[in-house]
């Protein structure tokens, strides 16, 4: 079976990639770029870890990273590269695919090997459909974060490899870590999500109380965060937001455009509260309540 190389600058996602890689081949080569800790973690997860070293190589320089990984590929027999489909990984994916002459699929949510062919599942048509696709030729596949568990501990190896690169003219002036809302709605077991049916920002307090009472988090459709700015972008569910799989999703005043539903359709139980009896969201809800969401929030708070 095809040799597999995995790379993510994010240690958690790199360990997830090792799990995915083992679906293709037991022998996994995992890369780190100038990062000792990551290289250690990879080898302790059973991979053949290679630490790529070059004093001037920074992950912000996508062109240089792609060139460096190509040099490793030339020395290792591998025709499948797995990256993480976070922003850094996606930005690298196209560039590395071009360097490799590979076909590229990003945001892959699930992968299956059938008769030697790697079948990838990803959203298509804005999330309206799920496409099953495979690549003919060299393959670069970027896996959506948190789609697979991290690899456990196993015996691996660790080596270093120096590369030659040409810096491409990208200089990092500053990195400002995100402050403020650090909520992780993808990890929440219960989500209370609000859409444009929420009348005003003042109503959010009640929704937050309800979410707290349920032991969950508040989430929203995109316009609530980007247009109205009532909630942070960390809380957006949907195609360009988070893909969540909670046990319970309580959807309040959400009409149910596919760009939203693609981020919640894997929930175990979906409740839709809406004044519109024909809202699209009702077709993908387990429980439908045609009612004013503000009143339902108050009543739920009292009666739970």
């Amino acid at each position, binding site marked *: 079976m095809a040799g597999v190389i995995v790379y993510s600058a994010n240690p958690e996602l790199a360990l997830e990639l090792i799990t995915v890689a083992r679906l293709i081949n037991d022998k996994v080569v995992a890369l780190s770029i100038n990062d000792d800790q990551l290289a250690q973690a990879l080898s302790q997860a059973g991979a053949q870890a290679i630490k790529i070293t070059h004093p001037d190589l920074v992950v912000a320089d996508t062109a240089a990273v792609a060139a460096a990984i190509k040099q490793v590929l030339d020395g290792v027999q591998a025709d499948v590269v797995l990256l993480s489909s976070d922003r850094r990984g996606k930005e690298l994916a196209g560039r590395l695919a*071009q360097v490799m002459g590979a076909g*590229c699929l990003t945001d892959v949510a699930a992968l299956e090997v059938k008769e030697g062919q790697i079948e990838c599942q990803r959203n298509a048509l804005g999330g309206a459909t*799920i*496409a*099953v696709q495979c690549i003919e030729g060299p393959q670069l596949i970027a896996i959506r974060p948190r789609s697979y568990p991290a690899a456990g501990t196993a015996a691996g190896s660790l080596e270093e490899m120096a590369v030659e690169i040409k810096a491409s003219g990208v200089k990092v002036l500053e990195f400002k870590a*995100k402050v403020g809302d650090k909520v992780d709605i993808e990890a929440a077991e219960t989500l209370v999500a609000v859409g444009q049916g929420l009348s005003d920002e003042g109503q959010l307090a009640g929704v937050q109380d309800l979410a707290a009472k349920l032991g969950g988090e508040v989430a929203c459709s995109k316009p609530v965060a980007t247009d109205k700015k009532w909630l942070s972008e960390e809380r957006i569910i949907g195609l360009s937001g988070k893909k969540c799989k909670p046990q319970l999703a309580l959807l309040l005043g959400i009409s149910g455009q596919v760009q939203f539903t693609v981020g919640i359709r894997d929930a175990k139980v979906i409740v839709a509260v809406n004044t519109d009896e024909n809202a699209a969201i009702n077709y993908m809800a387990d429980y439908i*309540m045609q009612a004013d969401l503000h009143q339902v929030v108050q009543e739920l708070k009292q009666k739970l």
Partner: protein
Amino acid sequence: MNIVVAMKQIPDLQQIRIRQRQPVLDGVPAALGIIDKNALEAAVLLKEEEGGQVIVLSAGNEEVEETVKEALAAGADQAFLVLDDSIENADGSLKAPILAEAIKKIDDVGLILFGEGSGDNYSGQLGSRVAELLGLPQVGYASRIQIQDSQAIITRSLEDGDELVKVTMPVVVSVLGDINEPRIPSVTQILKAGRKPKEVLELDELELDLSGLPQIKTLSNLAPETNRKQVKVGSVEELIQALKTEGVI
């Protein structure tokens, strides 16, 4: 300095219907990618400060000539189009060399802008591929772009923070969907759009060797099965009871 904005013609996603889990694309009008419009707006704003021309670049079937008017109305000065039916549903490995070759034919390009992902596939690989083919640096997920002499100062917004980078132009940049609010063209601008200059090339005029490229094979493309219960509940009490039975509260 000129700014190229790559825009993709896609089916209007709001109008796609699903029948027996199959997407129905017949009769669905074409539109430009949603985030591509943010890229265009970013270009027009920079042009208003720095001067130069905004050139919208698109490759697809012949309908693109009509679809691109929307971009010309929203502030692009001219269009550069590569038309061929085979391009319409092609993937990044085929489109990238076409766009790269087209960009080589445009003078004095300082910035090449893409949306972070197309509206339909959201694959986000084309900008990176084009940057590689042109041997240019790239910055993805931009939430802010400023120009200082021959350098661009760009904020790359990542999941865990903002990275401020300085990069020598020309550079390929992909922008986030929330970098700006695209303008809505006035009626006059829409009427004038048809008269703006357009350079239209047929694919074979680019004289590219597009053989031997990797292929993406689509085995199936279906709407997910929705086996939801769709039970109507009349009261909050009833809802609470149902959720307790489900074991989720």
